[in-house]
């Protein structure tokens, strides 16, 4: 469930005016920006952008870019974008910043529904004049490339059909490959990158039933190995994304030096989806509400904005 608190009715024109006023003159009224933007659903934000364009002949995003600096700006910018566009930007940033942040590519391709991800790919092409597959393929190499290209290329079956026999046989294939430390085995990539989420979940469950240990735990030992880490992340994103995101939040807030990129990304991309469940999981795991951790580790308008998205 979503966490953001937004009114059912709003006036895009009034909102646009508030934002304009907040950006005028010296400095910016970040509080006003947060009070409007953090409390609007995607379609409402789209209307505000349109109203702003109509009235002031400027893209709202450009106006904000010039006014804000730092973590708050980045978070707000990501937030304002339409979800598919946002994911496209996240994927592009993950590819183009020197070292590829494969976790972002895996998150975007594996936690969105097949239709949502299709929209992301279209948005990516519109923005960057290349397909996401092209860019992932030419910015990665070797085994990681094989996995990532497959993950972004797939258009998974999204039905509920499960083939139990297949789940059993493919659980064995996975088990065997992992036992032999053949993490780059084509069959692992094939199963993880082509099977439907329902089928994959059945396979993972069968694996656990047969071998008394979850596949992700089996893969946990090899964190430095990029390929193993990616496989693990992909499987978790595909079969239990709530727990996956809880962990990203936990790590982002725990590490000496908060990882704002990860923190922003999880909160901004899940606020309209399942941040409520993620919050519950966080509380269960860490015995403190995530808002408390966020308040401790962040400050200023960035903190206010994140807390607003978390439902406060």
């Amino acid at each position, binding site marked *: 469930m979503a966490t953001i608190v937004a009114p059912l009715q709003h006036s895009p024109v009034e909102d646009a005016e508030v934002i304009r006023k907040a950006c005028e003159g010296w400095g910016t009224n970040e509080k006003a920006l947060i009070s409007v933007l953090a409390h609007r659903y995607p379609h409402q934000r789209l209307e505000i952008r349109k109203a702003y364009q109509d009235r002031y002949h400027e893209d709202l995003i450009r106006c904000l870019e010039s006014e804000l600096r730092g973590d708050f700006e980045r978070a707000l910018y990501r937030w304002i974008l339409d979800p598919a566009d946002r994911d496209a930007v996240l994927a592009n940033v993950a590819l183009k910043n020197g070292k590829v942040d494969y976790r972002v590519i895996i998150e975007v391709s594996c936690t969105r529904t097949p239709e949502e991800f*299709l929209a992301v*790919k279209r948005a990516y*092409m519109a923005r960057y*004049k*290349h*397909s996401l*597959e*092209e860019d992932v*393929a*030419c910015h990665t190499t070797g085994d990681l*490339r*094989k996995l990532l*290209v*497959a993950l972004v*290329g*797939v*258009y*998974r*079956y*999204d*039905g509920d*059909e499960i083939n139990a026999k297949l789940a059993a046989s493919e659980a064995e294939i996975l088990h065997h490959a992992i036992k032999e430390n053949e993490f780059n085995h*084509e069959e692992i990539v*094939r199963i993880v990158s*082509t*099977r*439907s989420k329902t089928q994959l979940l059945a396979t993972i469950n069968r694996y656990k039933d047969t071998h008394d240990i979850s596949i992700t735990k089996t893969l946990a030992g090899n964190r430095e190995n990029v390929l193993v880490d990616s496989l693990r992340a992909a499987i978790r994103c595909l079969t239990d994304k709530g727990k996956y995101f809880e962990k990203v939040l936990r790590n982002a807030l725990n590490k000496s030096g908060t990882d704002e990129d990860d923190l922003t990304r999880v909160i901004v991309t899940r606020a309209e989806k399942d941040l409520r469940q993620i919050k519950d999981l966080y509380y269960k795991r860490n015995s403190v509400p995530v808002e408390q951790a966020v308040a401790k580790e962040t400050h200023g308008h960035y903190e206010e904005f994140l807390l607003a998205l978390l439902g406060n």
Partner: protein
Amino acid sequence: MALPVEHEALTKAFSGFGVNEKLFISELGRWHSEQRKVFRKRSEQFFIEDERGFERWDHHHVALLEREFLRFKTTLVLWTMHPWERDAGLANEALINGPQSYGVLIEIACTRSSEELLGARRAYHSLFDLSIEEDVASQVDGPERKLLVALVSAYRYEGPSVKEEVAKAEAKILYNAIKNGVSKKPSEDDEVVRILSTRSKLHLKTLFHYYKEISGHNIVVDFDVDMYLKQTVECMYAPQTYFSQVLDAALRDDADEAAKRALIRVIVTRAEVDMKEIKEVYCKLYGVSLSETIEAKAHGNFKDFLLALVEKGQSD
């Protein structure tokens, strides 16, 4: 009793496409039992002399006759089908038929637009409760799996933007892959698969142009070493030439059933796309019009229907 004509018509039904319904109605339908008996006695390849004193239809030829009667129906059903369902069905059929039919997968993946291929993938979900990439990945065993999965998964950019330097550099990569073809099979080369399966068609057209500058040959000529790669490149570089060749193979006297089915597939799937261009290329390559060849090799309703589809391009 004009027996030889009917005999010839029936014989023709097993060597060409479709059956001459009108002739059967006008002639065979009017025979009395004595004429039919003579027919059975004289048609040794269709009727076997049974030990208990009667001429028996050879089952194999009945089956062949059935198949020829069905061609019209198959064409009709395929023609009225939504293109997505059609492509999904053709892809699935190709997978089931095995390696000799994998070319159909390449054909569909490379000659359809991005949205058409996506539509086919959607229909595949509905028809088979699986994604096409799942099915291809789990059914294809050999080294061609990598290429085939990549091609059916493609959702290519279709805009006008092309980076010339990148196209040039990638042309060089392909050229080197072919040169080193002895030590490493080009179809298993990750870079070759990456380029051919992810780049936009416009990018690839530019790339092929640079390739010719580097190698001196058309890429289709150089990629002759690998059947699947060759077809991939043919479909992207000159689809109408590819289709003309498929049609020619289907209309030859020694064509097997798989090649024959390609006739229906190509005509139905291209009738409203680029049939006009295909006809032009066919004529240039073989010195005779496609319609003429169909007229000579096919019969009856099936022939008329095919010609109607082929000629559709004319009036548009």
